[in-house]
């Protein structure tokens, strides 16, 4: 029997097509989520501890050399001071060969994130979200007003043998303590033979 001869069967056929589309949509959505999949051992009561993810970014050279992308993500509350240098962990980028002197190669590829601060001095209290970077608003906790940060960034301090101490640094825009919730993502490239480690 052809489908147009029985309306009920036609409806079943439409229903099947809709189900297939829904399934494909969920699969594609899952793939999309996988791109930023975060599995943390932290409790849901906490911001996840800083973590590393391999990214889809790759630069491939004709000789077969591949620079692979990795992303370090972290977040924390900055409060109680006007100047911050908060250690996030130690990133180790090993050597592409057995020689420790060759360890530590990375290219800074991308830095982004968000900075959330609250304005409470204005007639209306509101949150403001800026991109992570110098100039992002923080809250002057003495007055409650927003103030531009003088500085905000991530630093890697080479400790030898490819070990970098990573710090989240910030300075408020004046001499009063400033506060903000920060989430940052730092993507870097290193040789594909190397698996960076966070400790």
């Amino acid at each position, binding site marked *: 029997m052809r489908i147009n001869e029985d309306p009920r069967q036609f409806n079943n056929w439409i229903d099947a097509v809709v189900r297939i589309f829904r399934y494909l949509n969920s699969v594609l959505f899952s793939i999309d989520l996988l791109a930023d*999949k*975060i*599995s943390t*051992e*932290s*409790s*849901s*009561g*906490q*911001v*996840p*501890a*800083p*973590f*590393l*993810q*391999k990214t889809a970014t790759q630069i491939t050279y004709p000789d077969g050399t591949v620079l692979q992308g990795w992303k370090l993500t*972290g*977040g*924390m*509350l*900055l*409060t*109680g*001071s*006007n*100047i*911050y*240098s*908060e*250690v*996030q*962990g*130690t990133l*180790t980028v090993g050597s592409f060969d057995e020689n420790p002197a060759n360890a530590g190669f990375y290219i800074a590829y991308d830095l982004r994130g968000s900075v*959330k601060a609250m304005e*409470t001095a204005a007639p209306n209290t509101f949150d403001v979200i800026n991109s992570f970077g110098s100039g992002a608003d923080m809250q002057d*906790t*003495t*007055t409650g007003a927003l103030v531009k940060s*003088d*500085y905000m960034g991530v*630093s890697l*301090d080479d*400790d030898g043998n490819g070990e970098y*101490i990573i*710090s989240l*640094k910030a*300075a*408020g*825009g*004046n*001499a009063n*303590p400033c506060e903000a*919730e920060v989430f940052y993502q730092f993507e870097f490239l290193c040789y594909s033979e190397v*698996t*960076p*480690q*966070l*400790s």
Partner: protein
Amino acid sequence: MPIEEKYAADATVKDKRVQEMAYADVRMQVKTITETVAIQPKTAVNTGTEDVPVRVEKRFVEPSIDELDLIKEDANAIKTNGASSADDKGAAEIIWEVADRQRTVRDKGQKKEKIRYRSSHEMFSSIKLLKAPEPGSDQLAKILKYSQKKIEFQTYLSSRGFAGGAVVNSQTLLKGKATSVNAMAAPVQPEVKYADL
């Protein structure tokens, strides 16, 4: 409550008196470091297909629930002891509060219970009690290095003239709660290097 009066558990900036009591005070049976460094998970690397373990030998260790109970007990004894100084009572109250909050989170985590907040600010609380590393351990070398770097970088940033050129801390970070009966006698005393404790 003035806006600058921060709950201790939310504070990134540590007070030296809290740091010292947690790390070196003989009245505390479980010695801890009051750190903002998050505990690294066992699997810090997720490639999408495989997890690569972090170097576990350098991980900081969080106190167990029993140890957190002991910390709370000791801190409570100090803060309710009439003979304790105002600074001691204030520091003990902050440690108690951090330990209490950490215990709640840890307990729910172990029971696989979900935690929900009204505001992300609560989730972003920063200070954690981590067990004081053993002498000669990799963890001790790590925390000594971290605290050294932190002070160095703060000095560096202030020398560049950012934020007025000097490190300024909140005046009333010392109160655990607006209703707290225990407050330290003086404004924040910035943390010091662990090597100096």
